[in-house]
């Protein structure tokens, strides 16, 4: 079995006094696509904020390669965060910068040894990897919604991350663009060997890409299922099976 990259131990997710999810326990392994799913408002995006280091969990630990992430100082956490690449729900590309500048900015900060030409070549490579070759000079506002997601992914790949986080990547995309993005996620997993954490409730995407699934319940406020998609379909709690079987028609489209 491959090494666990991220581990949550009794992790409680929430804001201030508000606990949205408690007692979360899971491991995300090298090179797997780990899907966090559940209904709207169950705390998927809040959990993601804890995992990417934007907000400390209310309780429990998060281990990155065996190291307690939140036990470190903010400077040390910033160093560890270089290994995370994040595609935000609203993409969050910096609108005043071209796509090249969006990708070069993290490189300038964290890889100062690279020359300007090297940074530009890397930016061009990352854009080409996501199917946006030759768009280096464009601004985010000049791209279509799907292309903006791809550009956001290119920025997420800027520092060659070990873990790629996607927050609702299919939101606002047509089915074909969504499928193409899923394909890209799988290609990146296979070729880079990166772990992928996907926060979504889009069943077609889950059926296409998931290796391991975590189901968060908004009534009990904790995880009620963890395992492969097939395990959850065969032996998962009824609520999870019901959730997944509503997307059964997508299963025919190809199981990852």
């Amino acid at each position: 079995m491959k090494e666990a990259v991220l581990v949550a131990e009794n992790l409680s997710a929430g804001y201030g006094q508000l606990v949205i999810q408690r007692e979360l326990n899971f491991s995300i392994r090298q090179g797997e696509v780990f899907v966090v799913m559940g209904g709207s408002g169950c705390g998927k995006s809040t959990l993601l904020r804890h995992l990417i280091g934007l907000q400390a969990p209310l309780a429990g630990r998060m281990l990155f390669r065996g190291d307690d992430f939140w036990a470190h100082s903010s400077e040390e956490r910033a160093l560890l965060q270089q290994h995370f690449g994040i595609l935000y729900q609203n993409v969050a590309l910096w609108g005043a910068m071209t796509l090249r500048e969006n990708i070069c900015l993290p490189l300038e900060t964290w890889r100062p040894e690279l020359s300007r030409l090297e940074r530009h070549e890397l930016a061009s490579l990352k854009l080409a990897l996501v199917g946006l070759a030759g768009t280096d000079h464009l601004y985010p506002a000049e791209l279509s919604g799907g292309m903006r997601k791809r550009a956001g992914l290119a920025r997420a790949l800027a520092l060659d991350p070990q873990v790629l986080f996607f927050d609702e990547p299919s939101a606002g995309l047509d089915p074909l663009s969504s499928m193409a993005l899923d394909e890209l996620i799988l290609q990146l997993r296979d070729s880079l060997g990166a772990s992928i954490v996907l926060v979504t409730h889009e069943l077609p995407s889950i059926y296409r890409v998931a290796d391991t699934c975590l189901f968060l319940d908004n009534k009990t406020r904790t995880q009620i299922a963890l395992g492969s998609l097939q395990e959850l379909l065969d032996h998962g709690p009824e609520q999870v099976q019901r959730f997944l079987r509503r997307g059964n028609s997508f299963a025919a489209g190809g199981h990852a």
Partner: protein
Amino acid sequence: MQQQTAGLDWQQEGQLSCLHVTGHWTLHQRKPDLLEVWRKGGRLPEQLCVRVNVTAWDSSLLALLRRIRYLAYEAGIEVNLQGLPAGVGQLLEMAQTPSTQAQAEPKTPLNRVAQFGAGALRVMGSMGRSCTFIGQVTLALLATARGKGRMRASDFWLALQQNGPGALPIVALIAVLVGLILAFVGAVQLEAFGAQIYIANMVAIGMTREMGALMTAVIMAGRTGAAYAAELGSMQANEEIDALQTFGFPPLEFLVTPRILALLVSMPILTCFADALGILGGFVIGWGMYDISATQYINQSLVMVSSIDFFIGLFKSLVFALLIGMIGCYYGLNSGRNAQAVGQATTNAVVSIIVALVVSDAMITVLCTQLGI
């Protein structure tokens, strides 16, 4: 033998020279210059063999291989990549997929005459849009006056609350200080003639005809004009204005009219308030430093200030209110759809309002002088 540093060199294999990529090809490593190595290769064969035998890699290896392919393509050479680590081949293939993103046609460079013409057209276009906006706002205000406008009363009251009572403290502070400065500057000159009593005249006329309205307008430009541009710009960025239009709400009637009306109501009141406090500021100097009694000061002020002076000040405040409201809203509604564009719209709005205020003030003053009022 494997090495830890990034290696790139030519090696002879029979008749062929092969490019060997070895060691750690990662972003952190110091790497050899490809162009330098490429030039050492001399005359290259029709098919170039690139042997990859790396101990670690990341995107810097991909960037190198991509660059080699590009150089080979330019030289008309076919590249044969060998020993690629798992995943690299797939990534290179992905990077070759052409983009489907639509792009604007490249612009043809213009000569100086054409550039001048294009600039003139832009200015004309901008003036045309401004005139259209003024016309549309006028129609929207008329529709509201006839009771046919689609303005929400609550928007008007909210804007009035923000523009009026909300601005009182800063208007009070600035008005007192301006009255004080006017009195000081005048007193230094008037004292030489023993005419300190005329401090009251100068401050009273200065505040009511000119400074009360102008300083209030400058404050409102920074406070309210900027807020209008930022609010409407953010609404534009969030597609809220598009949503209004699709529901059939004219943005001008719905968003601009209540804001301009609120300013038209609040500005004259704030100007009266500023006039009174400015005169008070002058009184502090006259009474405190030049021994003018309170009765003398008030009498002198009341004698000097005619209702015409007062109404000219009020008229100016109404003109300024229109300018602040219209320019602030115009820049907000024509803002781009990102954070930087909203900031730019706000800056442009404030600068344009202040220029417009000073120009219109000068025009009204010249007009009044010519008319003898």
